[in-house]
């Protein structure tokens, strides 16, 4: 089993008198792709801000690689856990793309050369070379999103948190972001992604955390979570389309009842083509 990267124990948090997070216990392992789901106001964003060290838990502890994070280690936490905000505009503060990406590394007090190198790497990773001297207010939504991801990449965190990365993007840009998320996973990053898109969570994540009313009500594999009707009802989720189709194929006896669960439309299509070949062979 992979080493654990971030552990949260008995975390409580409230705004004023309203309890927003209640007794959260999670252990995130290195290299995992975790989708975080739940209806609006379930506490996902507050949870993320706690993980990132912006908010401080009222009760409970956060451990980074087994080391408990105290008040003095917040900077360390912010360095190693990066947070890409949902609205790129609320993150971007500089007047050019390059300056913007340099903000995080500059705060980490690295040498100028190291900052330049990290900015260069982030720019080429996110394919922003052509835009690097442009001001953010003349960029499109998709471009701004890429800048806001590059912002965080330049800080080279081990755990990346994305708050609804595909929200308000057109399908092409949403696909781009998904490709970037895949690439980040291949490069060994640990990813925590808040999303409302059940189809995306089903095909992308290894693990899903479900929040409802400030509580973590389920923690399991996508196949497991999307078979638990009570949980889905409480968290305002529904079954992913590919899973519905797959279950129908199974119920009709067209595919074997085994542990295979195709997650993309292409995979399901291939299986269906396979059924046809088999049937023709039989007749």
């Amino acid at each position, binding site marked *: 089993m992979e080493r654990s990267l971030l552990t949260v124990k008995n975390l409580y948090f409230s705004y004023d008198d309203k309890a927003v997070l209640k007794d959260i216990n999670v252990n995130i392992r290195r290299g995992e792709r975790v989708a975080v789901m739940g209806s609006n106001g379930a506490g996902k964003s507050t949870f993320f801000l706690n993980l990132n060290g912006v908010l401080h838990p009222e009760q409970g502890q956060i451990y980074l690689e087994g080391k408990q994070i105290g008040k003095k280690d917040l900077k360390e936490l912010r360095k190693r856990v990066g947070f890409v905000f949902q609205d790129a505009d609320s993150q971007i503060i*500089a*007047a050019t793309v390059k300056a*913007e990406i340099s*903000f*995080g590394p500059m705060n980490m007090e690295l040498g100028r050369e190291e900052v330049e190198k990290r900015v260069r790497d982030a720019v080429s990773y996110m394919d922003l070379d052509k835009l690097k001297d442009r001001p953010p207010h003349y960029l499109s939504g998709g471009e701004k999103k890429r800048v806001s991801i590059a912002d965080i990449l330049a800080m080279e965190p081990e755990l990346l948190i994305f708050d609804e990365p595909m929200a308000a993007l057109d399908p092409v840009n949403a696909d781009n972001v998904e490709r970037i998320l895949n690439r980040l996973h291949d490069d060994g990053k640990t990813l925590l992604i808040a999303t409302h898109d059940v189809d995306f969570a089903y095909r992308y994540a290894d693990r899903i955390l479900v929040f409802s009313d400030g509580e973590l009500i389920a923690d399991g594999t996508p196949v497991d979570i999307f078979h638990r009707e009570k949980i889905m009802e409480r968290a305002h989720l529904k079954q992913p389309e590919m899973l519905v189709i797959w279950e129908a194929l199974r119920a009709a006896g067209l595919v074997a009842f085994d542990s295979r669960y195709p997650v993309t439309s292409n995979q399901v299509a291939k299986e269906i083509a396979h059924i046809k070949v088999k049937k023709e062979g039989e007749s």
Partner: protein
Amino acid sequence: MQIDYYAYRSNINNWNAGFKVLLAMGTLCLVIALDKTAVSLFVIMFFGILTLGVGKTPARIYLHFMTVPLAFMICSGIAIAVQFAGSPVGEWNISLHFFYLCLTRSSVALAAKVFLKGIAGMSALYMMAFSTPMHEIIDVMRKLHLPRLFIELMSLIYRYIFILFDVAEKMQTAAKARLGYQSFRQSFRTFAGVVGNLFLISLKKANAYYDALLSRGYDGKIEFLADEKQIRPWQIGGCACYFTILIFLWYVCK
């Protein structure tokens, strides 16, 4: 706002910002100090060619922005040229029954001189504004060691003013779509609503922005990587020639 857009598209955007600020400010001081019509005329021509010819700022836009100070300068020009008198003095005068409006040759000359000086100063400043994005000017101020608080505020305001305008525009469009600006009275009420809401949204967003700053390790100072644009030898040469011509013109006219 619009000036900023053209500044990014200018062909002289790639000149060193400090150099342009120095050129504009130096000119402004010299135009005032030397106080010669020939100098003013030369400056207007020089910067007109620089902004329109080299920088390729559209002439329509340039003239449009020139009309703003022009209105002020024409008004003040008239105020300088026209004098009130009890009797018909001066080369030209109009009787207004109680008193006379008089123009003398020297007062008209003085008005023209002041007017040209004003235009000269404006064309120098517009060369800077039409070719240097705000953030580069802020960088120059940073190098001049202006207070950090002042500089950081300026750069944040510069960034957020675009977001503010964006949100305001969206709200206004939404109000228009619901007939919010149909009558004069209605417009007033809608406008008040938009402004009030804008304030509340700003407060709410300020929190989100602060969280975003913290999450990237903000601890009290805002710093970015700034690129220095190179000053080329021919630019220094040109600049030296230009200032020499200014002094020479002044010397000839003395």
